[in-house]
């Protein structure tokens, strides 16, 4: 979107997801928890877009809405310019070839009662691959791509380590050749050494298969390492959006600055004097103020105060409200 390229691969327009709170059937005015309120995002072909934020900020709900696992309250999600939500959108089978998901917990993301081969072959069969040899070739091929051996296919999930399971999860996500991979905290449950292997694998796959990534994460080290663009979410809204270098070198919104300042970074011991968000907070553009002003918990049930994303650099947006 920086160079004004044609229609983006994926576009999220004014996405809202609200959950009614309280299960009292008789309650007249049930309160609405505004998990996502007004998110606009685009994903370009071959790009890695990261959505960062803390638990409850709406990043996972946004991901689930894109995957069709959560019905949006309002808003539109377009793939290649065509809406994929609502009754006129594609069915589950068509959607499956658009985007697939890699899950956070490698211990819960594989069916314990199915062999790796079955987990990978069943979607192929469902999508019309009939001959046995074709299926076996495809399974072997995808296992090789994620760094596993053909004989791993006949094993059950409990025979694998966490890192290997995550590889199987990636293989399953790739088996139908989707265009987009939704990475939901793909490495946060893994050990440092395994984490590095999976990150390397994901970056290799992105290059080899020309994939586009949307990554949900709270780990800013991983985000900085992998992303082209970063969206910072805070209580259902995007508060800052921009190219990765702009976000990390020039974080502007108070929440982004706080987030970056609080990551425990091993390098602080070497450079104790270096403040990663050095300098005074930049003043908001003239006539505007940051929204929310402080980083205290806003009310998740209230309609958010009116605010806009202002462009403060090439492709770098920050949320401000008229002051």
């Amino acid at each position, binding site marked *: 979107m920086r160079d004004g390229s044609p229609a983006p691969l994926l576009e999220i327009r004014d996405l809202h997801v609200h959950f009614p709170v309280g299960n009292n059937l008789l309650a007249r005015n049930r309160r609405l928890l505004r998990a996502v309120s007004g998110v606009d995002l685009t994903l370009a072909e071959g790009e890695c877009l990261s959505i960062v934020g803390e638990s409850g900020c709406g990043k996972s709900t946004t991901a689930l809405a894109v*995957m*069709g696992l959560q019905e949006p309250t309002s808003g539109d999600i377009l793939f290649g310019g065509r809406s994929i939500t609502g009754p006129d959108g594609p069915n589950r089978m068509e959607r499956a070839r658009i985007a697939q998901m890699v899950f956070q917990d490698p211990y819960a993301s594989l069916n314990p*009662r199915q062999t790796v081969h079955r987990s990978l072959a069943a979607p192929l069969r469902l999508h019309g691959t009939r001959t046995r040899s074709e299926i076996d070739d495809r399974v072997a091929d995808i296992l090789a791509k994620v760094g596993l051996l053909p004989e791993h296919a006949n094993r059950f999930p409990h025979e694998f380590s966490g890192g290997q399971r995550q590889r199987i999860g990636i293989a399953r996500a790739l088996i139908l050749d989707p265009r987009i991979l939704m990475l939901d905290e793909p490495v946060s449950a893994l050990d440092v050494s395994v984490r590095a292997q999976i990150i390397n694998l994901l970056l290799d796959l992105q290059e080899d298969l020309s994939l586009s990534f949307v990554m949900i994460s709270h780990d800013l080290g991983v985000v900085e390492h992998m992303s082209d663009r970063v969206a910072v979410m805070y209580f259902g809204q995007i508060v800052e959006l921009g190219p990765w270098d702009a976000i990390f070198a020039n974080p502007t919104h108070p929440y982004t600055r706080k987030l970056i300042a609080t990551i425990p970074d091993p390098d602080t011991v070497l450079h104790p004097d270096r403040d990663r968000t050095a300098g005074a907070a930049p003043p908001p553009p003239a006539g505007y103020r940051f929204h929310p002003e402080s980083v205290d918990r806003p009310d998740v049930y209230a309609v958010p105060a009116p605010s806009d994303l202002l462009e403060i650099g090439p492709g770098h947006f920050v949320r401000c409200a008229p002051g």
Partner: protein
Amino acid sequence: MKRFNLNLWLGGALVALVVVGAVFAPLLTSLDPVFDANLMYAEEPPDAQFWFGTDEQGRDVYTRVLYGARISLTVGIVSQIINSVIGLSLGISAAYWGGWWDDLVNGLTNTMLAIPSLIFALAIMAILGPGLPSLLIALGLTNWSWTCRIARSSTLSLKGLGYVQAARTLGYGDIRIMATQLLPNMIGPILVISTLGIGAAVLAEAALSFLGLGIRPPFPSWGSMLTGARELIVIAPWAAVFPGLAIFVTVLGFNLLGDGLRDLLDPHMRSRTA
């Protein structure tokens, strides 16, 4: 793992004993349970010829207990299969789809739990009339609520897991997800509750037959044998004791087997139900 699972082995042995008796009944006795009645030998106490004695019509109680096992096991297993199918379909679909369907199934389950299932079965038997088919229907429709509850709670905890969500994004239909992703992963607790359910059905069959609503005499059901033996309890107690013992052994066997399976398959469940 290390501890010897006494429940499993003892329960398994008792159930095996009953199954062997039922399956090989014609080999284990040379008499017929219905037609070999001889009033000459009526109310004989147990001896070398009649191991369990004879009843008021001179029929061999041992033979009748063996053939009775066939009825008890058929009723127990078939009715439990019906219960499992109902409970699993309702429980899994209710938790998976949620909404008004979940509310409806929940209400139905709670209603079923509130009515004593034997009373309910009695009412159904009263409408359908006695006999094996109506017994299977009556007991198969009245004891699915625990299976349903377990299926529902298992589904609730499973449906948020990555592999179930992945199945949806891969294009699986709802029914396929329920059958391939959810059902196989709750088979342990379902097996346990079904085993216990068979024991309960055997007991219910005996009760209904005892009340004259189940298997009608002269066919040898343990319950109907007790009915016949009731008047002889002082003169010929063996006619009541042995069918009663058979019921006891069978129900105990299935209950122990269920407990043993639970310890074997799902050690965490012990604290949940205890």
